[in-house]
C-alpha cells in the first residue's frame, strides 16, 4: 500500500512538473484585461464597490452601468468592477490600492467612502474621480470637508424627488393613514429619502403619519424582517424598505402579513426581480411590492463616461441627477397597475410632471443647519 502511494505521488509530481514545463515556453505572464485596455489606449474606468455585488440594488445597478460601457463604448473605454467586501477595515487600503493602479477614472461613492477619498485626492491630484451619493464642498475653504478638486465629479442623485413620488403612492394606498420608512443606517442620503417620502405622503394625505425607523444594517436581512414586523404590527400598512440587502427582509415579512399590507423596494426594480425568479415565494413578494424607487446608478455611470469622452463632464461641481433625466424614478410593475386605479396612476404621472417643471419643489436633507432633520422628523412622525 505504502509503495503504491509512493509511486502514485511520484507520478503526480512528474506530471505537475511536466505541466509547469508546458507553460514555461511563454515567459511573460498573461496580461490582464486592464493592461490590454491601457495598451490599446482605451479610457479605463474602475467602479469600486464598498460591499459585494448581488444586493439586487445599488451596487448591481452600478455594475450594469459598467457592463453597458463595455458593450456600447467598448472601442474607446474599458470598465471593471472592484469589490471591497463589507469588511470596513479594508476599505481605506483597498481604495488606495485602486488609486495606485493607474485607472483613468475611479467611480466610488457613499458616505462611508468619503473620508477615505479626500486624502487620496490630495495625494493623487490628477486622478479623475466620479463620486456618487455625497455632496462635496468645492468652494467653502472654511467649511466642513473642503476639497477643492478640479478632477472630482460629484454625482448627486435626487433621491428626494423619487421618494416623493413613492411616498405619494404609499399614502394613496394606505388604509390606516400610517406609512413607514425603514432605512439602513442614519446618514444624510437616507435622511434625504425620508424627507422626500414624508413630503410626498403628506402631499396626498395631509394627515399622514410617516414613521422613521433604522435597521442599523445594510446586510442583515433578519434585522429588516424584524423591523418590518414591528411596523406592520403597529398599523403601518405600507413600508418603504430602504437599505440594500437588509431591506429585503421587509419582503420576507410582508408575505406573512394579512392582505392590504404592502412594501416598496429601492434602488433597483425589486418587484420585477422577485417576479423574475419564478418561485412561488418570489411571486408572492412581487405581488406585495407596489413599486420601487429606482436610483439608476447605471445611467449615471454610463452617462458620466459618455460625457467625459465628449469632454463635457462638469468636474469640480455637484451634479444633481434628478427625476427629469430619469436618473431616479418609480418602477411600474404588474402589481402597480393592479393595485392602483387608472385615476391614481394619472395623479402619479401628474406629480412627476409637476416635479419636473418645478410646480412641486421637493425638500432635501442636504444643506441645512444642525438639528433641521430632527425637527422635520418630529413634524411627520407622531412617535418621535
Amino acid at each position, binding site marked *: 500500500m505504502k509503495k503504491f502511494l509512493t509511486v502514485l505521488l511520484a507520478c503526480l509530481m512528474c506530471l505537475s512538473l511536466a505541466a509547469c514545463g508546458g507553460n514555461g515556453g511563454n515567459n511573460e505572464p498573461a496580461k490582464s484585461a486592464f493592461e490590454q485596455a491601457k495598451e490599446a489606449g482605451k479610457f479605463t474606468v474602475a467602479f469600486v464597490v464598498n460591499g459585494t455585488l448581488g444586493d439586487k440594488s445599488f451596487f448591481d445597478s452600478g455594475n450594469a452601468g459598467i457592463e453597458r460601457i463595455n458593450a456600447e463604448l467598448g472601442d474607446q473605454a474599458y470598465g471593471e468592477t472592484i469589490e471591497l467586501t463589507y469588511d470596513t477595515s479594508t476599505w481605506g487600503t483597498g481604495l488606495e490600492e485602486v488609486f495606485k493602479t493607474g485607472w483613468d477614472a475611479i467611480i466610488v461613492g457613499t458616505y462611508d467612502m468619503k473620508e477615505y477619498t479626500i486624502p487620496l485626492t490630495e495625494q493623487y491630484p490628477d486622478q479623475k474621480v466620479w463620486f456618487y451619493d455625497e455632496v462635496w464642498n468645492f468652494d467653502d475653504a472654511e467649511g466642513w470637508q473642503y476639497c477643492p478638486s478640479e478632477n472630482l465629479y460629484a454625482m448627486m442623485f435626487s433621491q428626494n424627488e423619487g421618494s416623493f413620488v413613492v411616498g405619494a403612492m404609499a399614502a394613496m394606498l394606505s388604509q390606516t393613514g400610517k406609512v413607514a420608512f425603514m432605512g439602513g443606517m442614519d446618514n444624510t442620503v437616507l435622511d434625504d429619502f425620508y424627507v422626500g417620502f414624508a413630503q410626498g405622503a403628506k402631499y396626498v394625505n395631509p394627515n399622514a403619519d410617516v414613521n422613521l425607523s433604522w435597521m*442599523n444594517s445594510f446586510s442583515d436581512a*433578519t434585522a429588516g424582517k*424584524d423591523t418590518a414586523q*414591528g411596523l406592520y*404590527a403597529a398599523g403601518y400598512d405600507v413600508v418603504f424598505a430602504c437599505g440594500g*440587502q437588509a431591506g429585503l427582509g421587509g419582503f420576507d415579512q410582508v408575505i406573512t402579513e394579512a392582505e392590504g399590507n404592502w412594501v416598496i423596494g429601492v434602488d433597483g426594480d425589486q418587484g420585477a426581480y*422577485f417576479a423574475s425568479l419564478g418561485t412561488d415565494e418570489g411571486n408572492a413578494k412581487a405581488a406585495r411590492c407596489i413599486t420601487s424607487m429606482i436610483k439608476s446608478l447605471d445611467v449615471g455611470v454610463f452617462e458620466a463616461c459618455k460625457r467625459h469622452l465628449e469632454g463635457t463632464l462638469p468636474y469640480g461641481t455637484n451634479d444633481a441627477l434628478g427625476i427629469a433625466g430619469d436618473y431616479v424614478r418609480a418602477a411600474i410593475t404588474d402589481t402597480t397597475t393592479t393595485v392602483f386605479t387608472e385615476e391614481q396612476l394619472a395623479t402619479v404621472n401628474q406629480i412627476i410632471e409637476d416635479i419636473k417643471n418645478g410646480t412641486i419643489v421637493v425638500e432635501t436633507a442636504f444643506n441645512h443647519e444642525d438639528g433641521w432633520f430632527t425637527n422635520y422628523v418630529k413634524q411627520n412622525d407622531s412617535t418621535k
Partner: protein
Amino acid sequence: MKILLALLEVFKNPAFYGSVLAVTPPLLFAALGCSVAQKADMTNMGMEGIMLISSFCGTLAAGYIGGPNPWLGLLVGVIVGALLGYLVAFFNLKMKVDIILVGIAMNLLGGGATAFFLPLVTPNHDRTSTNSIQSGILPLIKLPFLEKFPTLNAILNNQNVLTWISYIMIFVMAFLLYKTKLGLRIRAVGENSNAAESVGISSSKVKTIALVLSGILGGLGGTFMSAAYLSYFSNGITAGRGFIGLAACSMGEANPIPTALTSILFGFFYALSNYARTTGISDNIMKMWPYIATLIGVVIYSINKTNKEKKRRAQLSEK
C-alpha cells in the same frame, strides 16, 4: 412619561410575547449547544461558524433535492452540524490544537466558505442570498383549540415547529445532563478528567460526544435561521447569534435551565427593540439593552458568588 405609556402598550400586546418566543430559538439552540460542550470543559467558540455552514448546507439540500423540502434541509443541517462538532473535537483532541483557535478557525471558515460557494452553487450566481432557489419553510404548528383564548392564541399559535423543538430541547438537555449516564460522564470529565479517567471513562470519547451534541444543536440553530426565520440563506445570516449564545451559556454557568432563561432574556430585549421602534425610543438605545442586561446580570451574579464564597470561608475559619 409618553415613552413609559408607549412601553406599557407594547407589554400589553400579546403579539409581542409571541415575537419573543419566535426570535429566541436560534439563541437558545446556540446557548444549549455551547453549554453541553462547556459541561465537558470544551468551549465551543466555533458555534457561529457551525451554524452558518449547517444553515448553508441545509438550504441547498432543501432546495435542490426533491424541490422545496425543508425537512430534508433540517436533517442535512443537523448532520453537517454534527460533523463540524466532530471536526472541532478531532482537531482539539487528536491534533492537539487549542480549542479556542479551532473555534476561531471554524468561524472564519463559516463566513468565508459560505460566501465563496454561494455564487458557485446557485443558478443565478447570487452573491448574497439563495433567493433563486426555493428551499421552503418548516411548517407552523396550528392549535385550533387556542382560538377561544385570544391572548394565548397570539402568543402560542402559528409558531414554527422548530420553535417548539427549541423549547423542548431545554428539558431534553437538562434530562440528558443530570439524569443519564452519559450526562454524568460529561459532567465528570468536565469537572476533573483525570479523576474520570481513573475510573475507566475515556475522556476524549466523552468530550467528542459532547462536541457532536453541541454541533447538532448548532445545526438546529443554523437551520432555524434559513428554514424558519427567513426562507433562504443569506451571507452572514446568523449575525452574531452564535456568540450571543456563547455569552448566554457562560451567564447560565452552562446549566441548561439558567442558560435557557438568559437566552429568553436576550430574546425579550431583541423583540423589544423591534416593537419599541414605534414608541419613540431611540433605536440605538434599544439595540443596547440586551448587552446592558448581560453586564448587569454578570455583575449581580459575581457579587452573589463572592458573597457566598466569603460566607463559606467565614464558616470554615470559625470551625
